[in-house]
């Protein structure tokens, strides 16, 4: 029984790792891989825009992750408090609908909503007297990141609540009964029972998502433009632009390797940190 799983793990996860060697080569469709040592990495680290992109990747992705934990857990707790079972299911369904839209569609939707000409948000703000002129949000360095966080939360919060809601329903009702007998109100019950019981799930979700922090691409790609490259360009969008003209598989492997190393550091670090604080990690 183990053999098919092992074979699949081996073929799709372990053997391809040997491809790492290309990170140290120059390898194009026309040239067989030529060993060039660390040249790819030297080139990567000397690009000024690369460090800005790395910075953006961390800020955007980790920021998004933290917001995601707060919102998903918070909303899961609030959904749990809805008395009517039908209403509960209805709210859940509506909230995770945006998850199923593609990023291209979502970008188109919000570009229209945030438009300076007839966009809902600008119209409302001008009508309420909060601003005099429409703001070109999508091209504004001051606003772009906030908008990106908002759109990410709009799209993904609902989906994120699913795991937490499932975990909450798994908490034994005995605990709540005992707490009620002891005189604890809903708020205290949430604080002393629900959240500690969820801690493990929160930790697992957090660390697993931390591993994917470097991979952010599509949400940035469909929403960024040249006016906001400084605050929005992430590693994958940067190398996408470079790679379009430069078919160097060695270079793109080097970038991928760098990303994997950073992810490894983040995950191991978070796990260690969690062990120190909570007495347990997940890895």
């Amino acid at each position, binding site marked *: 029984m183990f053999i098919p799983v*092992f074979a699949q793990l*081996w073929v799709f996860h*372990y*053997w391809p*790792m*040997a491809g*790492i*060697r290309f990170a140290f080569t120059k*390898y*194009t*469709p*026309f*040239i*067989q*891989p030529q060993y060039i040592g660390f040249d790819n990495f030297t*080139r990567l680290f000397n*690009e000024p*825009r690369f460090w800005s992109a790395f910075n953006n990747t961390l800020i955007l992705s980790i920021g998004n992750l933290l917001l995601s934990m707060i919102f998903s857990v918070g909303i899961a707790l609030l959904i749990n408090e809805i008395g009517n079972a039908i209403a509960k299911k209805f709210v859940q369904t509506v909230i995770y609908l945006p998850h199923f839209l593609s990023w291209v569609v979502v970008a*188109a939707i919000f*570009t229209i909503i945030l*438009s*300076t*000409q*007839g966009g809902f948000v600008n119209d409302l703000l001008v009508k309420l007297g909060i601003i005099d002129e429409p703001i*070109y949000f*999508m*091209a504004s360095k001051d606003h772009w990141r906030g908008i990106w966080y908002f759109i990410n939360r709009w799209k993904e919060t609902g989906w994120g609540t699913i795991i937490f809601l499932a975990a909450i329903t798994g908490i034994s009702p005995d605990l709540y009964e005992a707490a009620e007998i002891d005189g604890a109100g809903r708020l205290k019950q949430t604080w002393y029972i629900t959240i500690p019981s969820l801690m493990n799930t929160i930790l697992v979700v957090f660390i697993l998502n931390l591993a994917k922090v470097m991979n952010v691409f599509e949400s940035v790609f469909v929403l960024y*433009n*040249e*006016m906001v*490259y400084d605050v929005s360009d992430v590693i994958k969008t940067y190398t996408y*632009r*470079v790679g*379009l*003209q*430069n*078919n*160097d*598989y060695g270079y793109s492997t080097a970038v991928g390797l760098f990303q994997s190393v950073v992810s490894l550091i983040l995950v191991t670090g978070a796990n260690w940190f969690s062990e120190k604080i909570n007495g347990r990690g997940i890895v």
Partner: protein
Amino acid sequence: MKKNIVTKAATIATALLMTVSFLSGCTGTGTTSEVNTDPNVKPTEITMMIDTCMTPENGLQQVADKYKENTGITLKLEKPDHNQYYEKVGLAFAGGTAPNVLELGSIQYPTFASQGALWNMADAYASSDAPVKSIIDEAYVDSLRIPGMDGTEGLYGFPLAKGGGTVTYVRQDWLDKLGLSAPTNYNEFLDMLRAFKTLDGRSDIIPITAAGLINGESPYEIYLREFYQDAKPYIYKDEATGKYVDGMSEAPMKEALQRMQDAYKEGLIDPEIVTNKTSTCRDKFYADLVGCFNYWAGSWAKTLDENLVTTVPDAKITALPAIAESWYIERPSTSISITSEQYTSNPIGIYKYFIEYMHDGGEGQMLFTRGVENVHWKKNDDGTTIALPYLETPDKDVEKSYMAPELSCTKFDDPIALDERVTSSLETFYNNRKLVPYPPVNDTINVENAELDTIRKEVISKVVLGQLSAEEGIKEYETRANSQISAILTSLNG
């Protein structure tokens, strides 16, 4: 016990195999068989990677079958998803399965040629006396003469069709309503835009829009032609001195930036031009919001008109003749290239029996332009020929099987009449346009160009949107892009 041994063995095997594959090189590629040089030897099979043809669902295979019927040659066409075409082509070469023929456009054509991947057909073309020689427009063949791997000029591909370009479409019904005729110079052009802005007392009109302030690849200045005029926002060869220079640092570009900045401030250019995609500006145009729209001349004229008319039945679109200070820009032709001897054993046969056949002005050209008789087109009893509906989407008639009929670079007697809107927009375009060459490529450019393009785009946007003055913008460009510009110019000028 047994389980332990099996697990241990598996672990060791894994580690060993990984180490071996880690250290081993790649497998070899390509054919090493003899290369044929006799043009009369017909190939038995041709493999091709193709991009801008009709989809397999619409009958691409029938085209290949008909080709076999006519010539006896098996044609294997591979059409990857359009967005992944060049990725798949690169992988084919890297994996040793490069095709015999491939379609190459934009920067890829010179890149592949400079890497020695393409066969030089200059001699074959020169010595050929096939029908295509007497009907082809030589300018398009010449646009494909570029340096090869050793730096000498060669012909590494055959023009698929004319390159075409963008033209400025205008709402003719708005011009009529305002009693204006087509502007002939920049000032009249601006006055027209100003008149559009307040048309009918509306406040939502966008006088002119385009899919961006600058294109992401060569040719760069295809949008807002009336504003760019003679500016060259890229590195080009100054014919007078024979040296490459950066047009961004020259006076015409500074003036162009100033024009755009002023027009943007006045509200004449779409305020959201920086976030426009081609689909968003088309949508704005169809929603009756736009007066002028830079878009592709030719078959798009028909599409834009048909879609606009569903919202505004009385709308009329025409293409504006280029104003006095400017001209339209034609891209160099996409090429059909034959891969070099390491990938193809009979390049000259493929040239004669496939490429020349496709452009023969008769049977071959009909097949690769209009498709297969009674599948994609048919002859009526009264002698006229009409296009049939697409197999997959029958609400539209077949426009082309591969080569666009309205952009044919040979004198082709197309039996199917072209839509008047298509031909008139093209006529306006060709009346005043310049054919730009392929940009130069080399290893330095491949590495540095992407960043240069990015910086250029950022600076132009900042200036036009008013964050920097034209002067400051150029200075910022020159400072930030200094290493890229000097590296590229040194590699080109020596």
